[in-house]
């Protein structure tokens, strides 16, 4: 009896202590000023004065996710890039109209042979800390991006055209030959050959300027409070909770009119929070698009659609039968009705692809260059091929069965609905049974890098608005990214000419011709171009969804 009372009281005391500790800790964290006070609502209001800034007003609330990194020389994903392009800047940038424009540089001089680029910097460029930016900072940043210690998987891809960059990255040389610091305000790049797309590649975060003084002092943690040169500075980053950006009051292209941008990172349904007035912009998913399109609903006036530079496609490994035969590739392409499927399975939220270059890219035309839905022609192609159909499978002339297996990324529960629809069409129109195989993302990458996949579902997001980024990188026979085993000498020639063609119109014409040949060869079956569907709060002025990640917050205003 005595023992049990003692036990009970011990247990109660133990639990009480735990509750007090846990509760007290979180209460003290709450009150210690780490977070702004949230008084029974989901909205955090900023009560801090911050840098006094009479020219910027308002607060924008967006949904976001934790960036993988805020280091511009390491970032490979669009999520991180969204913050990075606001916090940092480079010599050149892309405007909302997708024009290449000067950023930190006040002028660029390109030599006649197209090999030397001389940048002169502006006088009025400052880091968020107030320190002036010099050409030395630019040079330091480029070298750091390519340094071996940094272990960046991307920097060489975007800066590798600079003479000596490759040698420097692989530790074969101490310096980058093609990078020269002329004086305090001038920096010069020498390329390994004339490359008109070099400027476009410089808009990518690998070429952004970082503060060497900050990094040398704190190599590990500097990204938590980065000293950048972009229109917004990182005021606060609470992991998985919130990111707050604050307008940079010495930004050289004009102080942003929008003072504060808050990204709520905790997830949950964005649309629900939008309707709860917790967010100002929300993406519309296929489940909500009907409501958004309904002219009588509240969402409709706030709804808009924006095309993206993202293409999804089927890819064939030309070295693996039966895709070594162009007739088979064409047969598969001619027997699928992408328009119908986009309409039915995706509620028309994707645009059927009309080529490889997406709308808005130089070289795009709205002529549909892809294989149309024509089952009769498809069957003709099948007959013309060296394979026959037997019992739902393709067989060689020797009677050997050649199965077709599409590999896609998935969790094993269900294939993509559109792939299932395509399978159904191939079965009905051609009598061929195609199999689907799902793997997880990392496995898919490993197999795709090893060029082991026979047929797969792919996607590509333009890194910079130049056709070289997709046509050359994916289809040139020597390109490391050509995972199709595609080899067409005519296409190679066109691409190589385009690489060094300095006349923009002629260059675009070369890419158009290359695109045409590639589509005739049916190495890819372009499926769709993506679109962003959003609802935007009526208080927000000037919101747009650019086709690729470009800085945009400084063009937005909020009237509240």
């Amino acid at each position, binding site marked *: 009896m005595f023992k049990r009372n003692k036990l009970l009281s011990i247990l109660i005391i133990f639990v009480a202590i735990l509750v007090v500790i846990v509760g007290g800790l979180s209460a003290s964290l709450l009150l210690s000023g780490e977070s702004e006070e949230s008084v029974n609502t989901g909205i955090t209001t900023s009560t801090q004065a911050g840098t006094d800034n009479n020219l910027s007003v308002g607060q924008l609330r967006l949904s976001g996710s934790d960036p*993988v990194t805020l280091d511009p020389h390491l970032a*490979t994903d669009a999520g991180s890039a969204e913050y990075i392009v606001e916090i940092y800047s480079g010599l050149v940038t892309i405007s909302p109209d997708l024009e290449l424009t000067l950023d930190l540089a006040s002028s660029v001089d390109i030599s006649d042979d197209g090999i030397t680029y001389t940048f002169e910097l502006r006088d009025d460029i400052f880091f968020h800390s107030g320190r002036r930016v010099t050409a030395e900072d630019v040079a330091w940043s480029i070298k750091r991006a390519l340094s071996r210690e940094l272990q960046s998987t991307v920097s060489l891809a975007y800066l590798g055209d600079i003479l000596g960059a490759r040698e420097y990255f692989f530790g074969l040389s101490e310096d980058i030959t093609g990078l020269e610091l002329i004086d305090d305000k001038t920096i010069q790049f020498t390329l390994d050959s004339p490359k008109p797309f070099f400027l476009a590649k410089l808009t990518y975060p690998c070429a952004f300027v970082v503060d060497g003084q900050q990094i040398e002092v704190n190599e590990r943690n500097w990204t938590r409070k980065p000293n950048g040169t972009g229109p917004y500075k990182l005021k606060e980053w609470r*992991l998985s909770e919130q990111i707050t950006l604050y307008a940079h009051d010495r930004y050289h292209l004009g102080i942003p009119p929008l003072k504060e941008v808050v990204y709520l*990172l905790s997830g949950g349904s964005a649309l629900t929070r939008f309707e*709860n007035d917790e967010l100002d912009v929300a993406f519309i998913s296929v489940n909500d698009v009907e409501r958004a399109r309904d002219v009588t609903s509240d969402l409709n006036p706030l709804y808009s659609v924006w095309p993206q530079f993202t293409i999804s496609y089927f890819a064939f490994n030309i070295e693996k039968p039966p895709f070594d035969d162009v007739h088979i590739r064409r047969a598969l392409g001619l027997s699928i009705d992408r328009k119908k499927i986009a309409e039915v399975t995706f509620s028309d939220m994707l645009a059927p692809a009309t080529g490889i270059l997406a709308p808005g890219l130089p070289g795009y035309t709205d002529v549909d260059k892809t294989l149309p839905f024509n089952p009769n022609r498809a069957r003709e192609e099948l007959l013309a091929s060296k394979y026959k159909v037997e019992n739902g499978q393709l067989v060689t002339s020797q009677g050997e069965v050649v199965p077709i297996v599409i590999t896609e990324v998935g969790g094993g529960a269900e294939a993509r609905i559109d792939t299932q629809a395509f399978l159904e069409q191939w079965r009905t129109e051609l009598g061929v049974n195609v199999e689907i195989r799902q793997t997880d*993302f990392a496995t898919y*990458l490993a197999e795709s*890098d090893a060029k082991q996949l026979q047929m797969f579902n792919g996607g590509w997001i333009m890194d910079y608005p130049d056709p070289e980024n997709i046509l050359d990188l994916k289809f040139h026979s020597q390109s490391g*990214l050509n995972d199709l085993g595609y080899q067409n000498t005519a296409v190679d020639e066109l691409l190589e000419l385009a690489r060094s063609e300095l006349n923009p119109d002629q260059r675009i014409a070369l890419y158009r011709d290359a695109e045409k040949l590639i589509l005739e060869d049916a190495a890819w079956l372009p499926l769709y171009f993506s679109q962003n569907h959003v609802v935007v709060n009526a208080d927000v002025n000037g919101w747009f969804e650019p086709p690729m990640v470009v800085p945009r917050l400084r063009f937005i205003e909020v009237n509240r």
Partner: protein
Amino acid sequence: MAGYVIRRLLWLPLILLIVSFFTFCIARFGPGDPVSVAAGQIRDEAILQQIREDRGLDGSIFEQYLRWGQGAIRGDFGESLQQRGFTVSEVIFPRMWVSAQLGFIALILVFGLGILFGLIAAWANGSWIDPLIISVLLFLQAIPILVVIPPLLWLFAVQLNLLPVGGWDGLIDIWWIKGVIAIPIPDPHLYIPLVAFSLPGIAGVARLMRISALEVQNEDYIRTARSKGLSEPDIAIKHVLPNSLLPIVTVFGFALASIIEGAFFVETLLGIPGIGRFVFEAVGSRDYDVILATTVIFSTVFVVMNLIVELIYGFIDPRVRLGDTR
């Protein structure tokens, strides 16, 4: 007794060694690697290979494991690839803490209510109250979390606007009355996750408690107490409850250990920055260091909790003597 505890704890390093090595091997022998996942669209095999070498992802499995082990012993679990610039500890401990807080409160609820309902059901055995309680609880246990959360969100967050749709803001919120008086209340972000978490668990504990209490109720000493004239509530609380707690203690121990594992569904649906969702993503991204660190931590907590549960047993039940029996 102290000797017993120490002997048990000596097993811990060996268990951790085996568990970590096993996990290490599984992760690395599988297809895919973190450098490949971390690379962007533009991939150059030469670059990736150099980075793999520089990160020590080459070499034999034993070399790699030794390198990891040397760091781990010092508490350095490496760097996360999903969140660059942060060490693994910095990334997982805050999330484990969040999961633990939520899990702990849920635990109190589950066991508190479970024990209560179980006792009542056992006491009401024979009447209609017993099967009613159990049926209701089973019904609640059978509903999947995925089904419970959306209606709750719709009702309380969207329609009534009483609760936030998701997110995490600590355990305690301050309710200001007239801007002057501060009253601490449980944070509104907690309510829906707690309901989702607790409903299934209460049934399990209640049923266990009920069975255990029924057994105890049929014991001789209970009949004695009744015949002595003790009131029913007295009997229930002073005699039935403590004696039927034994199986609950075991379950509680392991439930307590598992709160640091987080819960994938609840965290993903309600935007709670917990460890469950993060580990799942780490596996997908082949973030080896995160996977290993969390496995090692979970294993340690389990082993220690196992030991604590046994000790509590020995404390509660004088018939159980640990370590002395030969």
